[in-house]
């Protein structure tokens, strides 16, 4: 589903990603952990072209993202993304937030888009919120709408960029529950998070990044209970 070869990313003279190689299978849930500044968010944002790639190759949803001839907008229709700050469209209602992609990008009829949006709202546990505006919802509710908005495009992969980091603690659970359900349905997911419980419980594979490298990766059980590298041990000692 996703194949990353020798990915480098620099901002000016500052190299953030120093050669990332990885492969994500279909239906796999990969959790990326690491200290802030390790490059994990940048890595995720490269996967849908929100950050340009300095060098290397990314294959995703059957397209070559790093080929300049690739239609990046077409590619992004198949790659959903959920942001730390939710980024719901503030001037649109909840229903419009979810339908604007299908309607304007995929040219799906309003009736069909609305029906899908209502199903998705029920799925993320927010039926009846269609007419609300984003700032009338709590953070946890907004983030669940953001997940519904991404799902409305019927993506093949979902990318989560610290989806619970901006939430009050009591709202983290509701968002993680939606993500768990999604994983159980077989969605391919790459999740950057500080939620070690989620990584352990839902992740099929954990990637530990530090200093622009993938330091260590493996099954959650192995990484959490038996880390091999000192840097992984240090990091886990601080967060667990």
């Amino acid at each position, binding site marked *: 589903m996703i194949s990353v070869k020798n990915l480098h990313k620099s901002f000016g003279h500052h190299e953030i990603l120093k050669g990332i190689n990885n492969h994500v299978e279909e239906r796999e849930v990969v959790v990326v952990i690491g200290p802030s500044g390790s490059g994990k968010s940048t890595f995720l944002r490269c996967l849908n072209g929100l950050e340009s790639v300095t060098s290397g190759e990314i294959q995703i949803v059957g397209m070559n993202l790093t080929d300049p001839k690739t239609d990046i907008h077409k590619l992004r229709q198949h790659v959903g993304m959920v*942001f730390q700050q939710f980024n719901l469209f503030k001037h649109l209602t909840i229903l419009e937030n979810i339908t604007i992609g299908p309607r304007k990008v995929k040219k799906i009829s309003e009736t069909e888009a609305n029906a899908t949006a209502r199903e998705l709202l029920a799925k993320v546990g927010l039926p009846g919120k269609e007419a609300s505006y984003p700032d009338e919802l709590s953070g946890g509710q907004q983030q669940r709408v953001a997940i519904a908005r991404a799902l409305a495009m019927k993506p093949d992969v979902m990318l989560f960029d610290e989806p619970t980091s901006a939430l009050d603690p009591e709202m983290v659970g509701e968002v993680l529950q939606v993500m768990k359900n999604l994983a159980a349905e077989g969605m391919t997911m790459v999740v950057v998070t500080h939620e070690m419980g989620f990584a352990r419980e839902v992740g099929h594979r954990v990637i530990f990044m530090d200093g622009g490298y993938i330091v260590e990766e493996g099954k959650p059980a192995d990484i959490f209970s038996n880390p091999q590298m000192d840097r992984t041990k240090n990091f886990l000692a601080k967060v667990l």
Partner: protein
Amino acid sequence: MNVVWQNLPVILGGLGLTIQYSIVAIILMVVIGLIAALMRLSSVVPFRWTASAYVEIFRSTPLLVQLFFIVLGLPAILPVNQWFGQLMYPILAAALTLSLNEGAYVTEIIRAGILGVERGQKEAALSIGMTGFQTMRYIVLPQAFKRMIPPLVNQAAQTIKDTSLLAPVGVAELVYRGEIVISATFASFAIWSVVALLYFIVIFSVSKCASYLERRLQVDKR
């Protein structure tokens, strides 16, 4: 008072022209400002450069000088009167110069409005597959527009006042008519009072309408 009543048709005729030039200039300044703002924010360097040069040139010279230069100066070196007609050229040139001048300020208002929309909004739009144009059209501009209303209304009021500078290049608008009436009647105080009052009524109404519109948008949509 008699002087005022007798000459009111002449003065109101001038007000009519003032309003016509204002409407044309306000519409054109927004169109020009939007295009130039998008050019300034474009990744294409020649676009950015052209739009910046336009803004700087029109902001850094007085409107009156621009009007003299384009309405009266250009015909001295170019056969513009033949191209557009002896009677048409001054009208077109005056309206266009005014629009270009105000458009330079509107460019900066719109640019600031667009830059004021959080980066995350654009990223979210791109992440669901929107093109740059769709992102601008459906996500960024509608949000930017709401922030732009107060400064745009301000600029519209300025534009209405700036039409008074069309008098020296021969447009028979409100100030021009006032001068004509005064030269015939010497009723300087009465006529300038009426002229000022008419400007006030027009501009005050515009800002009242705008604040109503703004409140409506706040209530309906965020």
